[in-house]
């Protein structure tokens, strides 16, 4: 490329330069095409199909009847149970996760505790699904190890307790909610600067006072955000509950509608799936807003 000499004016055709740049950008975009094509085929289009399908009858005509079907039994009860279960497991996992994360990070705790809990949490978070269901059948089922142990101690948890009930299922969900919370909460608590704790102590505050006036207010947005995340996580779950034999869960209802065992009603399945998407989108938006709030304190 010849260098222009000072003084000599070189004519640069402006139009062709910008055209070249946009052409190379177009070529570059082609490189990302396979990925976007794949996502469209296997994610976006199916999602679009079901959103559209929620408003169509079996013959393809537009209708709102699928949506209105959701409001008729047994679906409202299913939503109620799913939402309650998700909320309960989110709160249980969230609170205990906070307490455990804080304990793991305490300076006096033996060195091995943190890596032990972090690696086990990574493992436990991946253990959800069918094996987890049977694991709890072995633990708290009617013939479970803990059940029989409690019986020997005089505590008969059945029939009031049930793995398919709200509390029982939430307890099972804890197995993957708790580790998730621990893993995500550790960086949040580490974000509480040592100087804040020491300053508070220096000014006369006890540990509890620190948490009340400084610690909790600062981490509350993150804490709530993570609990919302746990909520979404529980709401989407299917395999674990199915294995436990839970019957009135939204995800299980959807599965029953399309697996052809009793009735096949894909239209209602679309409507229920659409409702699930709406609920999950709401949780993600709330989570994002809370995260934004959180970053204000923890800069």
């Amino acid at each position, binding site marked *: 490329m010849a260098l222009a000499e000072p003084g000599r004016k070189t004519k640069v055709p402006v139009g062709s330069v910008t055209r070249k740049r946009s052409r190379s950008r177009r070529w*570059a975009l082609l490189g990302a095409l396979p990925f976007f094509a794949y996502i469209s085929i*296997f994610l976006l289009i199916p999602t679009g199909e*079901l959103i559209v399908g929620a408003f169509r009858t079996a013959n393809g005509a537009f209708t709102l009847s699928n949506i209105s079907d959701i409001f008729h039994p047994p679906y409202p009860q299913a939503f109620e149970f799913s939402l309650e279960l998700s909320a309960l497991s989110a709160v249980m996992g969230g609170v205990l996760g906070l307490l455990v994360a804080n*304990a793991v990070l305490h300076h006096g*705790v033996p060195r091995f505790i943190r890596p032990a809990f972090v690696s086990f949490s990574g493992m*436990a978070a991946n253990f959800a699904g069918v094996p987890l269901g049977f694991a709890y059948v072995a633990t708290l089922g009617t013939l479970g190890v803990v059940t029989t142990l409690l019986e020997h101690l005089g505590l008969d948890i059945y029939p009031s307790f049930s793995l398919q009930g709200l509390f029982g299922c939430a307890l099972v969900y804890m197995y993957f909610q708790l580790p998730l919370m621990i893993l995500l909460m550790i960086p949040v608590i580490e974000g509480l600067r040592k100087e804040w704790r020491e300053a508070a102590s220096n000014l006369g505050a006890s540990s509890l006072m620190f948490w009340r006036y400084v610690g909790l207010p600062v981490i509350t947005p993150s804490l709530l955000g993570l609990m919302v995340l746990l909520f979404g996580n529980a709401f989407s779950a299917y395999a674990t509950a199915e294995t436990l034999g839970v019957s009135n869960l939204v995800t299980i209802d959807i*599965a029953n509608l399309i697996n052809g065992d009793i009735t096949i009603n894909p239209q209602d399945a679309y409507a229920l799936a659409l409702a699930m*998407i709406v609920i999950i989108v709401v949780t993600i938006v709330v989570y994002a807003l809370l995260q934004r709030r959180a970053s204000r304190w923890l800069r």
Partner: protein
Amino acid sequence: MAQVTAADAARPKDHRFRRARNRVPVWHVIWLVLAALVFLVPIYSVVQFSLAGVQPGQSPFHWYLTVFDDPMFRSSFWLSIQIALETVAVSLVLMVPTVFWVHLRLPGLRPVMDLISILPFVVPPIVLVVGLLPFLKNITFLFVRPEVLSLIYVVFALPFLYRALDAGLRAIDLRTLVEAAESLGAKTPRTLLLVILPNLRAAIIGGSLLTIAISMGEYTVASLLEFNTFPVYTYVIGTSTAYEGVALSFISFIFVWAAMLALYLLGRGGRSAAAVAITDYN
């Protein structure tokens, strides 16, 4: 000042200081113990339960032996492994060049990629199946082949693999490496293969292990599309014979534990592996 040393050693206050330094509040211990119970009691129960319920004269490992003897066990496990490997292969072929390309040439697309990487959370497996089922039923040749599961699992693994690759690429100075390679005469595909990939080894292996764990454990789509993968097999067996289901549960646990151990060990040696790779190329 020298005499202070002897006096120091005799002072009982020394122990007081050491204790005060390392005092852990009771509450913390309680929460840690509670969490440990939540994690370990089910595993203990699984082991205990799977060794129980045997008739006198039978081996305590009766349920495990029954399961191992079942040809369906082997075929479903093998099927799951195949699907998992196929998922990893498709995911890597799809994601690695794409993430590389976006980082290099299309940085403006990063926010879009970030958004897409959380879409699979908005569309959980059960919902995705609802959308895919009618579509797939029409493509019968694909519908009956288990490969379709791999193609779907790629979507579920996407967020994790993307995050791993994105982090891995952000950790290396991509632009400099590519320009150095170009100045030595290498074209982009070659650069990707010979220069970038070795530096991403830790991210790729980590992401792949997570993908395998996800694929091996996935039940929702596999059962609704009626494929006999390992989780589906576990479900069918377990709902008829609880003891065998629990034994299979323990086998799954060992598998996940091994995968996570590999991930952890990799995380320890991963950076040095990448460092070796870089120096290899010098």
